[in-house]
């Protein structure tokens, strides 16, 4: 009964999305604000109805109602309660529902938040959001409904994929979707600007916080995914350039370009077409990412061809939205031709342009690498694999270029930089980079990427520190206070800028973590009996016991490893080889010990009947910097969003 209520609500929401589009159109045609108001009501009701749909599904999971096909496929009577809720988005149908539900939440928020200040935009916003909601709801209602019943009712569900029974995986999809969907708000405002011809800077200023918020969610989602892969997949890495990961990385790259590029338009009123282009590409890539992941086209062209309905539908839907968006942009671009005024090649404006170029090429690289096997196969060129070695070789130089631009960009003045400017801002950072490289070279580091990366990181970091300390001193002098109060005053007075610089510092920390933990990872795999020892780096690991343990819905063999540094016992690590009861799927549960900002990472992928365990030890130096950098980035973005409103905004 409950699930039918959810199903019914979702169908009504679909009808209302059509009504929303119609009232938006009528509001534009008749200029009667009542139509806009009824559109607002439609959006709000869609949110409520989809909320009911979500709750109905959550309820069915909680009571483990296996008469619902989706619940039977993704749950089990022994699945822990915590995961019964997250199982809602553990499969295809449920994640689509979550996607569109988040979209309805954001649409409703946007409509109510900007209702008074943006009356002319509202019909467009309502129309565009309802169109996207309509597209997704059609898919859910007609092609992949999570509300379908199953007859005969099975006694037991198939269980949630064991790999997804993990706290990080509970949060990863909602975060990612909030990122994807969050970009729909600036996208809708951009569409409104294009359709209405009100092409000023207003839409950018209004949506700046939305964009930043979406970016933060996407970043968090990606990092959570990496964190999950790190300890759950058991090979000690966090980024595998997997097509699914790439699908979320592409909108991130272009979204980041957009985030920077809008600053030029805010400040100098230039690059209008360019910014519209970037937000359209960003949101398109969010949609394409959803298409790639959800259509099955990535696994193989053939699996797509055998079950083409869903995939074809998503392709047509995404294609239509992208087509309309770009069509509108092209039609308007003549009107948008603004006089570009640039005083110098060495100016903030031009650095932002090159930043955009690098981000776009980075995104194009990921796009090419992800789709190349599909394209080649489709045109009969045989099957190839584009894996991490390709990306490491091609992506790293581009990333280094971006890091370098990140170091210089914020300290090159708008309009024109003089030689004096450059010398003042960059001579010490250049020196800092050189000193860093020299120090590392002395300690025996010879890897070219490690050295180049460290140079750029030291350079960029020093530039940020120098600028901030100089400004803080000025504030301290003027207020005749101490330097700490000066720092605080400098930060709060320029919160937008320095919050962004904090995010940049987070990126630098992250990059150090990535360099150290990829280039200087050590790994060892040995077979051990109880009592045996292995050494890895400066540590010794002694297998003292292998025993059976049992969890709610799994059984495991657990190895007990004592970890020593010299003769001191550091800790006991207990990696497991688990078998989940329902599906009999094996997983390897890693055991991790943090030391010196790095990890000792241990898994036990195999145990033979004779009691010989295969132990896989990995040392990941400075890996905590990867997650720490992510947290600093997030902190910077939160401070950016929470900054007090200034008069000119």
């Amino acid at each position, binding site marked *: 009964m409950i699930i039918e209520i959810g199903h019914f609500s979702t169908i009504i929401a679909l009808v209302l999305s059509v009504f929303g589009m119609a009232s938006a159109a009528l509001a534009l045609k008749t200029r009667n604000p009542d139509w806009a108001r009824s559109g607002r009501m439609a959006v709000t009701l869609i949110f409520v109805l989809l909320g009911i749909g979500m709750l109905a599904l959550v309820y069915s999971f909680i009571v483990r109602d296996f008469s619902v096909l989706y619940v039977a496929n993704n749950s089990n009577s022994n699945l822990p309660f915590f995961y019964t809720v997250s199982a809602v988005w553990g499969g295809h149908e449920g994640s689509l529902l979550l996607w569109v539900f988040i979209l309805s939440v954001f649409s409703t928020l946007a409509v109510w938040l900007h209702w008074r200040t943006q009356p002319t935009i509202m019909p467009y916003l309502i129309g565009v959001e309802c169109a996207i909601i309509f597209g997704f709801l059609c898919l859910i209602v007609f092609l992949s409904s999570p509300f379908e019943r199953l007859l005969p009712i099975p006694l037991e569900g198939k269980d949630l994929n064991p790999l997804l029974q993990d706290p990080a995986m509970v949060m990863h999809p909602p975060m990612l979707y909030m990122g994807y969907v969050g970009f729909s708000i600036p996208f809708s405002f951009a569409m409104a600007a294009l359709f209405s011809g009100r092409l000023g800077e207003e839409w950018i200023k209004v949506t700046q916080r939305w964009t930043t918020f979406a970016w933060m969610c996407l970043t968090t989602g990606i990092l959570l995914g990496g964190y999950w892969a790190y300890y759950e997949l058991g090979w000690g890495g966090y980024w*595998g350039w997997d097509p699914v990961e790439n699908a979320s990385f592409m909108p991130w790259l272009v979204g980041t370009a957009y985030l920077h590029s809008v600053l030029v338009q805010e400040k100098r009123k230039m690059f209008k077409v360019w910014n519209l282009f970037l937000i359209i590409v960003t949101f398109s890539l969010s949609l394409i990412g959803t298409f790639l992941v959800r259509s099955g086209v990535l696994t193989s062209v053939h699996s797509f061809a055998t079950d083409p309905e869903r995939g074809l539908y998503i392709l047509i839907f995404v294609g239509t939205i992208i087509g309309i968006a770009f069509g509108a942009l092209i039609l308007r671009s003549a009107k948008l031709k603004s006089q570009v005024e640039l*005083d110098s090649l060495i100016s903030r404006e031009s650095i932002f342009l*090159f930043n955009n170029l690098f981000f776009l090429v980075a995104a194009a690289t990921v796009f090419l690498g992800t789709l190349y096997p599909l394209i080649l196969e489709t045109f009969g060129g*045989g099957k*190839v694999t584009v894996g991490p070695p*390709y990306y490491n070789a*091609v992506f790293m130089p581009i990333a280094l270029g971006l890091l370098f631009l990140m170091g210089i960009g914020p300290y090159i003045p708008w309009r024109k930089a003089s030689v004096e400017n450059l010398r003042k801002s960059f001579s010490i950072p250049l020196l800092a980079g050189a000193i860093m490289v020299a120090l590392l070279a002395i300690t025996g580091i010879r890897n070219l990427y490690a050295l180049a990366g460290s140079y750029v990181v030291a350079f960029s970091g020093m530039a940020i520190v120098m600028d901030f300390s100089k400004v803080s001193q000025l504030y301290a002098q003027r207020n005749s206070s101490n330097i700490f109060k000066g720092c605080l005053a400098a930060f709060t007075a320029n919160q937008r800028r320095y919050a962004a610089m904090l995010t940049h510092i987070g990126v630098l920390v992250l990059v150090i973590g990535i360099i150290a933990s990829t280039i200087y990872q050590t790994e060892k795999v040995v*077979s051990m009996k109880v*009592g045996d020892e292995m050494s890895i780096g400066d540590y010794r690991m002694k297998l003292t016991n292998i025993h059976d343990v049992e969890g709610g819905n799994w059984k495991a063999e657990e190895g007990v490893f004592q970890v020593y540094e010299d003769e001191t016992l550091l800790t006991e690590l207990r990696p497991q080889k688990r078998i989940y009861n329902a599906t009999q799927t094996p997983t390897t549960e890693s055991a991790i010990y943090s030391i010196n900002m790095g990890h000792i990472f241990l898994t036990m992928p195999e145990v033979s009947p004779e009691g010989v365990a295969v132990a896989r030890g990995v040392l990941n130096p400075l890996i905590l910097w990867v997650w720490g950098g992510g947290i600093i980035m997030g902190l910077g973005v939160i401070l950016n969003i929470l900054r007090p409103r200034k008069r000119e905004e």
Partner: protein
Amino acid sequence: MFMPIRLALALTFILTTPWAVLAEVQDESALDIQVREIAKTLRCTVCQTENIWESGAPLAQQMRGVVRDRLKMGHSPEDIKEYFLSRYGDYIMMQPPAHGVNWLLWAGPFILLLGGGLLLYKEVIGWVRRTPTPSTTPPTPLDEQARQRLERELES
């Protein structure tokens, strides 16, 4: 140290800790390391872009076994690569070989970067040339009233 003492020590050690007879320090052999290096370059054909080293799939395990056996038989890493290539084609390598149409993939990003960079550079230079240079007369100094206002603005 005298031999008999060493021997006695070793004996006591062995006798007092019975498990120590079996326990030993395990380490990777040169073969293990070689297997790993090769396994990291080969794709697990049933997985999603995972190499046979990192994959936990049974097929990956079998393939690791094949690599190990062939190394033991004295095949060189090159031979093994050729063997897998002949059986599975380019698909088996973790990255496409840099020949034929694959050049597009390998060079594409750099062509884009260089081409885009050049284009952007020319465009920017063009914009700079068309932009009238701002007058070079030094700005008139602020009067006291304006200066105070500016201070207040900065303060807020």
